[in-house]
């Protein structure tokens, strides 16, 4: 159970400094300027335009991380961006009986914040609160 406790206590929403956060993905490398951009319920044909715009706006940042609900990652890779995947509301509905999506994705979002320690969180389409509020509860 030690490891379990370690997981739980190490994830703090407002860690005092990135390098002190055990879940920060660049802990060894030191602080980086990171922006997280959510793309929930955004059509695929809008992605390229958004990627170009965000890339330009945050050109001085070390990493742009897109959180997408579409399982198509090629354009993020081509832009040199990182990405995370949340199954869409339609996928959640399709698989509603195996997972309490709202609770799981809320926990996953916490991990993403702790992992990337973003300076900014931007939303195109539904923001994370709306996305989670609409997430499926287990039947």
């Amino acid at each position: 159970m030690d490891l379990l406790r370690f997981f739980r206590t190490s994830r703090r929403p407002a860690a005092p400094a990135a390098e002190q956060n055990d879940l920060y993905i660049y802990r060894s490398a030191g602080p980086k300027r990171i922006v997280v951009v959510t793309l929930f319920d955004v059509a695929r044909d809008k992605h390229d335009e958004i990627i170009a715009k965000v890339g330009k706006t945050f050109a001085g940042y070390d990493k742009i991380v897109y959180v997408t609900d579409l399982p198509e990652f090629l354009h993020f890779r081509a832009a040199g961006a990182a990405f995370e995947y949340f199954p869409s509301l339609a996928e959640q509905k399709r698989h509603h009986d195996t997972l309490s999506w709202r609770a799981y994705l809320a926990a996953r979002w916490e991990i993403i914040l702790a992992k990337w320690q973003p300076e900014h969180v931007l939303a195109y389409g539904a923001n994370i609160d709306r996305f989670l509020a609409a997430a499926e509860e287990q039947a």
Partner: protein
Amino acid sequence: MTVCRYDIVFVADVRFEGGTSTALAAEMTAAAREGWSTGLLMVKGPILGLPFPVHADIRAHLDKGLTERVDPAQKVETRLLLLHHPGILINPLQPRPAIDAEKVVIVLHHPAVDRAGKQQYDIATVVKHARFAFGKPVLLAPVSPVVRQSLPRHLPQNCALLEEDWHNLIDLDDWPCRKPRALKMPVRIGRHSRPHPQKWPDTLQQAKAVYPTDARRYEIRMLGGEEFLQAHYGAIPENWKLQPFGFAGVADFLADLDFYVYYHSEAWSEAFGRAILEALAAGLVVILPKHFEPLFGEAALYAVPDDVRMLIDHHIANPALYAAQSERARRFAVERHSIARFAGRITALMPATVDGLPSPTSLKPPLPSRPVLFLSSNGIGMGHITRQMAVADRLPPDLVPVFATMSYAAKVAVEAGYQTHFFNHHRAMGADTKDWRSVFADELFELVSHLKPAVIAYDATAVFPAIADVLALFPDIYALWMRRPMWREGHRLFLDLERAFDAIIEPGEFAEEFDTGPTRDVRHRAYTVPPVLHITPQDRMERDEARRLLALPADSTVVALQIGSGNNFDMAGVRTAVMDAVLSHPDTVVVEFQSPIRAAIEPIQPAGPRHLVREAYPVFRYSRAFDAAVSAAGYNGFHENLLGAIPTLFVPNEADEMDMQLSRARWAELNGYAWIMRRDTDLPRCRDFITRLLDPWQRRHMAARCAAIDWQNGANKIAAFITDHARLVRSDRKVVD
């Protein structure tokens, strides 16, 4: 949750290879003939550490619906619970089954103390753990006087000993009697046992005494010997014919013998001897050590090892004596061990049906659905996720596949209709592996704790410490590692984390004899299955339909080009050379499949009207459209092209991090199943390779050789293995250290 009612619930570790499982299978048959409803709660006990599959007879009963699976979480009521083998109660059953049994019987298949005086189990502990699990006093049913005599004089509280031994039962329909025939030289002497040192005479000299080496007079047939016996004794006499231990074909094996001679290690104490009973049922003259006499009486002959040969010769010389002994053997099996006896045995124990309760034979509720988590690493291609889909597609509807992958090809699982999660590999983020360990562990922990899968099936060569960390937190989840063979030496370090898993499953490999990698020497620890294919060759589209859907010309010679994503081994030169060479032939078309996980965002631009670019998954489904192929030699593509009888020129991806694609392709070429072209040495002769590939005579003969390959899909076996381990109760671990 609805209560399931059965007449009898069997609780057993049905992975046992020998008599315990065969006896249980016979009881299931007998119960079904009586019209009793039966359920089976599977236990993973502490005795078998390696990943044995379920015994074939019991699996056949499950497949036919002769008995039904019981889920540990199901509420079950039964008139009688029969727990087979005390060894599964050495530790408590976890989770505690929700079974309310009116009576609990523990069938003692094994002596509590062996012939050397070593304790095999503590009956007080066994009874205590039965009480933990079922909350009832238990009845003990020894299978033989040997077991009965091994029990302590004072039994623990809450248990009683049945007066009658529960002799193993046998379905005589499965064991036809040997047809009377004159003995002729050499006479055939056989035996059948597990390949375990305890089951064999301790030295070769002792073995030769009972299995004589005079080839003119005796032919010795040993089922269960083979590699084990070579290692056990060193030299094997010429007249000993060794065959592997097997479930199938034993009746035929026995029917072809004249004598059955069974001697074992001095240290071994045989509780009963199921294989001996089968030989008696087959009407063989059976010769045994004297200590078996209380079990088999006059049905067998008894001798010290030095007298065995003389006894055999005596019966050869006296046909009437042989016939009388053969008749005694069969009669003994019929009178004492027929499964017809099961009804009387059970009726005496089973409480009468209580009025008002629904009949146990009424419709049962479906098994509760259980998620199975298919976890995979990134991979350079799509091999891991494709192999997992091969298995997931074959699971029963009550097991729900969920994918969690680091592969950029996650969308193929989504598009196949599976719940899919994606985690980043450290390389995708440019992260330090130490930093990634805790992040990935947390991500995986969160998914597993929310999903609570019954089984985690991991497919990858690399095992990450984070995975071991998380598996250790969920000891009730059955964890297996599917790892294809042909590893490079550099991957050896991953074997260290093998212990994090309950089972290793190795999908088979046609080129196995060319495998010199690190997994070769540990293959005995794995459950090996035939090569795994996602789409079986006969399930592919017809040629015309595939050509229509891919918009390929109906009358051209079509060469499929699939040389990988290019992520770690640059195939640009190969691609250009192959296209030039193919298109230099008239009436040819190259159809190039771009990978869903290619590195470049821009689609491949066709080089001309006879270069067609397509994206399809799985490509193999369309492969009847192809006349030939140029392909990398990854596990899936290799086996697909051979089994699909597609004449193929393999261009192995020889990057250090890959599997032994070169060896695989070489093996295929040497066996006439394909050709090989190496990027770094053969490219200048590419036109010659392609000319040969396009030669109709060559293609016809190569396709014919491939079509003759004998194969069963290993994916079916893995799916069956997962199905059998998704509803386990476990007693393979101590609760308190």
